[in-house]
């Protein structure tokens, strides 16, 4: 254990300092500061709530639809923040890379952690709304921990891959922006999965993001959520697909990032 901390000592020191710096700089100069971390998803939530729940009434039939919607948005925002933020992260630190040798993964890890702190703050807001809506917690709520872990791994894996790819191909940032937008609508965030044809639902739910969001809603908000388990008619093994995809992307991204990171300094 001591040997392990010794080996990663420099990475840990750097990671702490970069996360701290990132947080300090994020809302610097804004009057409300950190409150924006909470205000941003809330305002987005309010807009979407009025459009989709009140005017279009898409959420009928789902108990606690506002909380259901908010949780989906918060989880998706985390994914979008981590991946969108890290695309240019390596290139953005190019000046540093050319001056000193340090473990490059720390840059991505730091971005991921500061987004994670944001996520935790947002969970406080969700908790507040859940209390308001008299949503009781069961033991099932504990499932949120492995689900958040899966979200963390999936997001950072995509981030590693994108940031390394961006060093060589600067189109990646534009492409990812479009993909992210499309994926937002391809994921059952605004609409319940029951409202789209079953054969499409069967495909959409296979994406790790859809699986995570629906499982999280199932465990925290309402058992009336269509999870991957229900879409596939009670086949436990179906979870292997999104989990397998997450794992596969994580391994491939780590390998790719590792092999490229040696050349970041001369390529950025």
């Amino acid at each position, binding site marked *: 254990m001591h040997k392990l901390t010794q080996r990663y000592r*420099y990475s840990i*020191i750097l990671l702490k300092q970069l996360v*701290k*710096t990132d947080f*300090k700089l994020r809302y610097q100069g804004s009057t409300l500061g950190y409150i924006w971390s909470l205000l941003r998803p809330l305002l987005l939530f309010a807009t979407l709530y009025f459009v989709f729940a009140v005017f279009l009434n898409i959420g009928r039939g789902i108990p606690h639809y506002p909380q259901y919607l908010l949780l989906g948005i918060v989880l998706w925002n985390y994914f979008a923040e981590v991946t969108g933020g890290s695309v240019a992260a390596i290139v953005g630190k190019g000046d540093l890379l050319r001056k000193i040798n340090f473990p490059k993964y720390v840059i991505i890890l730091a971005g991921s952690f500061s987004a994670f702190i944001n996520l935790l703050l947002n969970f406080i807001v969700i908790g507040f709304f859940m209390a308001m809506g008299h949503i009781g917690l069961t033991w099932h709520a504990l499932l949120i921990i492995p689900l958040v872990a899966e979200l963390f791994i999936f997001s950072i894996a995509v981030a590693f891959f994108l940031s390394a790819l961006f060093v060589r191909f600067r189109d990646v940032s534009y492409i990812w922006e479009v993909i992210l937008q499309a994926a937002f609508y391809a994921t059952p965030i605004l609409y319940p999965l029951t409202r789209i044809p079953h054969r499409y639902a069967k495909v959409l739910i296979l994406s790790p993001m859809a699986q995570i969001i629906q499982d999280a809603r199932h465990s925290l908000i309402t058992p009336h959520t269509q999870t991957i388990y229900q879409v596939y008619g009670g086949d436990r093994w179906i979870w292997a697909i999104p989990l397998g995809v997450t794992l596969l992307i994580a391994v491939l991204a780590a390998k790719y990032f590792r092999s490229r990171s040696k050349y970041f300094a*001369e390529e950025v």
Partner: protein
Amino acid sequence: MEPDEEVVIRVENISKDFVLPHEKANSLKSLFTGAAKTRGKGKETQHALKDISFEIKKGEFFGIVGRNGSGKSTLLKILAGIYQPNAGKTYTKGKLVPFIELGVGFNAELTGRENVYLNGAMLGFTRQEVDSMYDDIVAFAELERFMDQKLKNYSSGMEVRLAFSMAVRADADILLIDEVLAVGDADFQRKCFNYFRKLKKNKKTIIFVTHDMNAVREYCDRALLIENNKILDIGKPEDIAQEYAQLFLDNDKSSDEDDGQTGHNKRWGTGDAKFSKVNVQQSGDKIIITTGISSRAAIERMIYGVHIFSTNGSELTATNNRMISAPDISDLAEGDEISLTWEMLNIFNDGKYFVTLTLVDSVGTVFDWDNEAASFIVKRPQRSTTPIMPPISVETQLVKKGERKDRSHD
């Protein structure tokens, strides 16, 4: 001081190439279209280092010198682990801290205090470790009153002071120092050099990249000269400094022909009489400039002069046949030729000098004005910062306390 025999850095057959795409294929489109069209044509391999091998022992102060573009900075970055070599291996023992630049990671939007912690982390210090030396850092940088101000409000001098104050804390066995440390005002330089002396006393291993041969002579135990991406020599600082100077001399000869082209612009006059080829020799403590004048028309009362300029363009000395009352050949008939030999005491310091020849007459006609007609390089083992070094001697007389009375009489 004899360095320990323990090898702390070993470099074995390092080579480094940079692949420079002519038009960088950093968009996906050019990846697809470019790959099909110009396979292998759009790239150019630039050799930055070729087959470099050397060893550095513990406690050595090792200089790396070379001209711009010779590859010395690439070598330093490979030693620092910033670049990966294409071939070969490096081996380092102990904690290595590079100073390619001072204040790595400094962020203008953060306060001085926050930057100390950030830069500290870059150097591998935990928060607690920075806490314990924070006061010393601030005191050394003399910035007590400014630590809660943002770095963007610092003057560049203040920023360098803070960065340097951090750098001297670096707890390393091996330090890689690029010439960046040698910038700054006189006061800062003095601090740097004091720091170097302290490092040397503490038997730290230091690798120092520089252009400054004085620093090499003063601090280094050994030095490496790199030229055209290869090691030219490794040896005593004195020899390396001489060889380094020689590089510029060789370069001068090879580029003489190019100068011939531009030389026409620098040369003007009526052409009624012209200087022939100029030759500068150094013999003993003399500089001998030989040339000739040939006339194409009759000339009366000509004045031929010589000027010596330093590389920065200041005129160090000048004279002509009138001023030194030369033997009176001042009138030439058409077709006459005379030979000239200027001889002067070599009072010039280490460096390169340019000779300008002028041929005019007493009413102001310019026959030939040949700017930088020739150049010469003077090499001296000791060097001061002044352009000239005439022989100066000093006589001293010790006056004892008891004898002072006698002196006060006169």
